[in-house]
């Protein structure tokens, strides 16, 4: 499990991935803590918190839906941050962060859309409505799915990183504009008939506790996923460099003969 690499590899020194026993303890400790938190969160959501009087059992999905949305936004903010720093300084470490955050963000946005639709069907009577928040979330999903595609289709990882960074910045700047434009547009048109609790004004204390606990749990879960993805990405890059080195040395020997 020890992660030690050749010291001349530059990405090692700056990658910040766990090295040695202390890092390993930290990583496993976080994993165990998150696992326990997830179990506790499931207990709170399905056993402990009372069922909503008007919405019924389906309201419980709210304790997953809201934290997922929060984590997705956090992830896309990290994509933006990593993209700006990567473009300005050319730092590979920040690019890795941006890419890993984008992958987790797209996954979580997908789950936000799915859990939202499951909730909307019994409450609003439709799976989907073109409400500003829903429309913006869907567009967000398209932008960051595109972000991952640009990387996949680029000729070299370094170029892909730059193109994706540009998209990460444009996309993040665009999101509030999309939101306001859709809201304005809907303000002019007759508003779609939306069910009672699109915005739960005041939450019962037990519900608030469950929601906050769920938010913390999902944020920790996000950190775990991000750390694992970053470590994997660092390993992928190290492997790529090693392959490149091996390929170059064999061609060198051939040409010298």
């Amino acid at each position, binding site marked *: 499990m020890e992660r030690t690499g050749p010291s001349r590899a530059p990405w090692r020194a700056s990658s910040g991935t766990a090295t040695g026993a202390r890092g390993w303890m930290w990583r496993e400790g976080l994993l165990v803590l998150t696992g326990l938190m997830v179990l506790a969160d499931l207990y709170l959501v399905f056993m402990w918190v009372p069922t909503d009087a008007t919405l019924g059992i389906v309201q419980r999905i709210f304790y997953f839906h809201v934290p997922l949305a929060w984590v997705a936004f956090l992830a896309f903010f990290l994509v933006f941050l990593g993209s700006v720093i990567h*473009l*300005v300084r050319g730092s590979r470490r920040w690019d890795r962060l941006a890419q890993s955050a984008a992958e987790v963000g797209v996954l979580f946005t997908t789950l936000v859309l799915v859990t939202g639709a499951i909730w909307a069907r019994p409450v609003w009577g439709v799976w989907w409505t073109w409400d500003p928040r829903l429309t913006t979330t869907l*567009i967000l999903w*398209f*932008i960051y799915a*595109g972000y991952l*595609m*640009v990387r996949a*289709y*680029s*000729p070299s990882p370094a*170029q*892909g990183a*730059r*193109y994706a*960074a*540009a*998209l990460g*910045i*444009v*996309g993040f*700047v*665009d999101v509030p*504009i*999309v939101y306001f*434009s*859709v809201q*304005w*547009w809907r303000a*002019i048109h007759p508003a779609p008939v939306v069910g009672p609790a699109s915005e739960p004004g005041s939450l019962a204390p037990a519900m608030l506790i469950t929601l906050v606990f769920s938010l913390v749990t999902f944020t920790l879960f996000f950190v775990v996923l991000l750390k694992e993805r970053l470590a994997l990405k660092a390993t992928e890059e190290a492997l790529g460099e090693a392959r490149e080195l091996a390929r170059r040395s064999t061609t060198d020997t051939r040409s010298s003969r």
Partner: protein
Amino acid sequence: MGRLKAAARPVLLLAWKDLLLELRSKETVTTVPVFALLVLVIFNFALDLSAARAADLAPGVLWVAFAFAGVLALNRAFFAEKERGSLEGLLMLPVSRDTIYFGKLLGGLAFMLAVEAVLVPVFAVMLNIRILSWELALTVALATVGFATLATLFSALLVHTRSREALLPLLFFPVVAPVVIGAVQATTSAVQGAGAGRWLAFLALYDAIFLIICPWLFGHLLEE
């Protein structure tokens, strides 16, 4: 004043080069308007575009056609250079990246505005809408600037990637969704004579934001 003139000259030259190439080859100038009209025909099958409903549907139909046709034309900015093998030459010019960006933007913009100047009256006739208002002219101009600003950046962004022709609309349309909304709403207001002021202001704001961000990003994109 002299410095501004010196900075504008290479931009205008680059834009003129692209327009001249287009005038000689007539590659896009023939396909884009025909494609836009084809979109109109397909909408006629999908929606009931009778005279009574045309005023409600026309702005949407107009802008979907322009957006599809526009992406066809504007993504050529750097793709065409790559196909001709002249991209390296363009990037080695002793001018700043901003000059290249604005030259390409201006060329694409001039082309699109010329095509739209022909298409808007044709669409107006076929959809039975009233045109010739300064509001509609301003809407077309501002929305086209918004489209071209982003399309020029995305063309540069994707020029080296595989299956770029398919990827560009996929990335472009989510980001320009606000322009489509703004243009459709402003056109609806203009056609109904309701005053399009706040949507025009919205389009202008959008243009301003991306006219600042896109050249900056462009400077970081094509470094080799």
